[in-house]
């Protein structure tokens, strides 16, 4: 999933402090799972904003709540078509994708981010999300035991651990697993240490961010 984290409320207040009618817009997908931008968080943020405006003596400011199934699809974003014009600010707490798609769709209404979008990751345990993928566009997991050195090695090394791997941990942080230790452990477990011996040559990064904004186009599913 796309993992996001809540922005400090002071930062959000700074965006909307002069607004009169605000819509806090959540998303029922990834950000709900990572507890940063779902219906529950919409309620908490809206209540916090109302309290702020009330304390400022701005009782007339209206803060409404709405959570869409997704903010990355036309169909769900259209659900607020009839009401969007009433607002002079939308605070989207979907991921950066949803925030942008909302802004694209409602061109004349300011849309502000209520979260920081962090990475593609997993729920390791309740309240702990960790990165797994950087969407480089050319998956190499078949050769690295299903563990990605691009996402999980601080130097994204392709040919084994650097000299700073110590007792299974990364040199930059003792809490952080060394990706290459994990890869080696896994290659041993699946009896494929031969894969480690293979030199991984220069990577084509043109499918990564390096190649500019990307798209996937599938004629077979286009209508």
């Amino acid at each position: 999933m796309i993992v996001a984290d809540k922005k400090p409320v002071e930062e959000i207040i700074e965006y909307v402090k002069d607004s009169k009618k605000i819509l806090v817009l959540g998303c029922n997908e990834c950000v709900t799972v990572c507890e940063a931008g779902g219906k529950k968080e919409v309620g908490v943020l809206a209540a916090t904003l109302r309290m702020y405006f009330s304390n400022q003596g701005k009782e007339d400011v209206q803060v409404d709540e709405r959570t869409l199934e997704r903010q990355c699809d036309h169909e769900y974003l259209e659900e607020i078509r009839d009401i969007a014009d009433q607002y002079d600010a939308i605070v989207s707490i979907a991921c950066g994708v949803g925030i942008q798609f909302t802004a694209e769709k409602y061109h004349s209404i300011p849309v502000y981010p209520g979260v920081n979008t962090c990475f593609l990751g997993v729920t390791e345990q309740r309240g702990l999300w960790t990165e797994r993928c950087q969407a480089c566009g050319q998956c190499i997991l078949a050769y690295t035991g299903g563990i990605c050195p691009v996402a999980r090695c601080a130097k994204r090394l392709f040919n084994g651990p650097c000299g700073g791997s110590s007792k299974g941990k990364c040199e930059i942080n003792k809490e952080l697993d060394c990706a290459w230790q994990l890869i080696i452990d896994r290659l041993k477990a699946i009896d494929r240490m031969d894969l480690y011996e293979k030199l991984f040559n220069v990577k084509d990064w043109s499918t990564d961010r390096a190649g500019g904004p990307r798209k996937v186009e599938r004629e077979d599913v286009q209508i």
Partner: protein
Amino acid sequence: MSAKTPSKLEKVMAAGHLGVTSECGPPRGSDPEVIRHKAELLKDCVDAINVTDNQTSVVRTSSLATCIHLKLMGLEPILQMVTRDRNRIALQSDILGAASFDISNVLCLSGDHQSFGDNPQGQNVHDLDSMQLLWTVRKMRDEGTFLGGDEIKRPPKMFVGAAANPFADPFEIRVPRLAKKIEAGAEFIQTQCIYNLEKFEEWIRQAEDRGLTEKCYIMAGVTPFKSAGMAKYMKNRVPGMDVPDDVVKRMADTPKGKQAEEGVNICVETIQRLKELKGVSGFHIMAIEWEEKVPEIVERAGLMPRPETD
């Protein structure tokens, strides 16, 4: 192995002598006298001088510019290049720049993570890793082409090296990793500082079993301790460093005023023991901000005078 490049270091080791290198960390400023002073201290006791590339991710004068200063002094620099700060365009470009000054040694590294340095909020590049950089330099030299395939007019003639840390984890892949570096194009290796001699000897033995010491010159890395505090720091705080307890104790049991001398003694003893070890082709003496001690270490280790090359 016979010499393939104009590198003095390669010629020394190809002739069967033990090679000796040391290093010069560029200054955190633009005064070339600092570089020249360090180089003067080292010039008669080593075959080549490594120039570090923003080591520990702290901004310094560039490795390439410093190498040029050394070259203009008539010395033999080893251009250290890390893949942290430059993409493949900049790396190839700097290799050509170095070659245009006839700098004939390069050491390919990934580099310390930027979080250790003075710009922890910076991006890192890592377009290539150290092995891919080795492969790139060898392609430029041996095939005379850029990564993109175009021909290079007057290709770089560089003796190509890499680092190896026999002490990092997991130990079982340390020799396979060395094999990969050699396959990628490494012709010489400079190791991490050696204090755990038994572990190093085991690593060399495994490397020899795979025939790697026949394909590549292994230069054993040594660093003299200045104090017991430094020994403890290296043991506890430097990632991938293996300093056995008895070495720390030997430093700690030495009176403060004599610790520096004891640190040099340990370093000299290490070289003397490893000189006899099959598979060791030379020594890389990293006297961190203590370059003035290198001549004494080389002399006492019986590595003087340095051989002449044509």
